[in-house]
């Protein structure tokens, strides 16, 4: 304990400069890849599970209380508690440590913002526009695919962004249950009291979270339908 701040800065710079930290299965590139793989897969699974239900409910303009309650429950679930449940489930199913407990924690974490935002995005599409589409003879499925989803896309993506940022942040905790990813540097840094590794890992995780947020925000702006007032 008690590394002095001034020397710490140099230590962290040296940690990043050390070629040994950029190679092999414990290297920075591998850990970043593991982090992206885990997070991407968790968000993808959450989208597959949550999006159809939210689209169905939103299109029928019903089940608003479900969408709101899912959001509230999601907020009350601490990420570490989810990881605890994930660990119990993974061990009960004989799936072991590391990847699966983390996955079981990340998917439920990602579902609430996706459900709520998708539902709100669809229900907030101007009913006149939907009626006009119906009058023009579009089938319900076509109304959803050609009118409601395109118009609601920025808000839907905002939900995926919230989910993705939370997942990227929480994937760090996976190292507590012997997972890989960038949390490894932080958890090992704490355990071994190696501050260069600890702070280096923290910088990488923080950058990855901010990069996720920024790239999704850019995507949201690009998908806004021309002529529609920017939803943000």
């Amino acid at each position, binding site marked *: 304990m008690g590394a002095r701040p001034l020397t710490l800065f140099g230590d962290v710079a040296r940690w990043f400069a050390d070629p040994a930290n950029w190679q092999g299965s414990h290297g920075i590139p591998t850990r970043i890849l593991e982090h992206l793989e885990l997070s991407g897969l968790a968000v993808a699974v959450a989208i597959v599970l949550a999006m159809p239900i939210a689209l169905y409910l939103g299109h029928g303009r019903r089940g608003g209380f479900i969408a709101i309650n899912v959001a509230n429950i999601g*907020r009350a679930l601490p990420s*570490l508690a989810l990881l605890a449940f994930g660990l119990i489930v993974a061990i009960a199913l004989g799936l072991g440590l590391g990847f699966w407990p983390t996955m079981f924690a990340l998917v439920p974490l990602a579902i609430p913002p996706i459900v709520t935002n998708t539902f709100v995005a669809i229900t907030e599409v101007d009913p006149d526009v939907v009626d006009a589409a119906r009058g023009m003879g579009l089938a319900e499925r076509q109304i959803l695919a050609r009118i409601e989803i395109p118009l609601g896309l920025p808000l839907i993506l905002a939900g995926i962004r919230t989910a993705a940022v939370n997942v990227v942040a929480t994937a760090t905790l996976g190292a*507590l249950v012997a997972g890989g990813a960038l949390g490894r540097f932080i958890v090992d840094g704490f355990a071994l009291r190696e501050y260069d590794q600890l702070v280096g890992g923290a910088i990488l995780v*923080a950058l990855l979270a901010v990069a996720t947020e920024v790239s999704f925000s850019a995507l949201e702006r690009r998908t806004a339908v021309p002529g529609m007032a920017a939803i943000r």
Partner: protein
Amino acid sequence: MTPNEPLVRWDWLASHAGEIGFRVGEHLELTAIAVAVGLVVAFALSFAVLRIPRLYPPVTTVTGILYTIPSLALFAFLVPYTGLSVLTAEIGLVSYTLLILIRNIVNGIRSVPSDVRDAAQGMGYTPRQILWRIELPLALAVIFAGIRIATITTIGLVTVTALIGEGGLGYFILLGMQELFSTPLLVGAVGSILFAIAADSALVLLQRALTPWARVR
């Protein structure tokens, strides 16, 4: 966690009742300090923003970045400077409350109708009186919505501070992960969720007590 072991060992619960009580108290203390300090800082920044609107974008950008940085990473940044201490935990916890609180305070006060403000001015209220007697009471519902979200978020994040030697109920989660023992895992996880629900209910009651006019419909 061997197959023949029960999910919850009630004898463990009974023999650790005292420690569980202690950790609940610690959880409450860490949360209360974080939300209280967060409120003071957020109000100070909000008043500055309301007076100088140009400050709003930089304030939300900085608090937004703080909010985006994963909690474990933020604690990791702080530990070399402030050690494994309550201070480290609180700096992290407070910084996560700021974005939510400032947004709600500023939007709450800005959403007070200007007619009401004009009427108060016409009745001879000073700017200070307008703030305390008109704007803050009318903005209270929105501000309370922010306090509720900030409190629930903080209760969740307190569990993560177990890694820097604090943690409240998060201590049991970490213990369960190290020993692969489901009873403390469940005590910590279920306990922190119940604690969040209880705190939220308490805040709803407090809000109702503070805004008696909102009940008369």
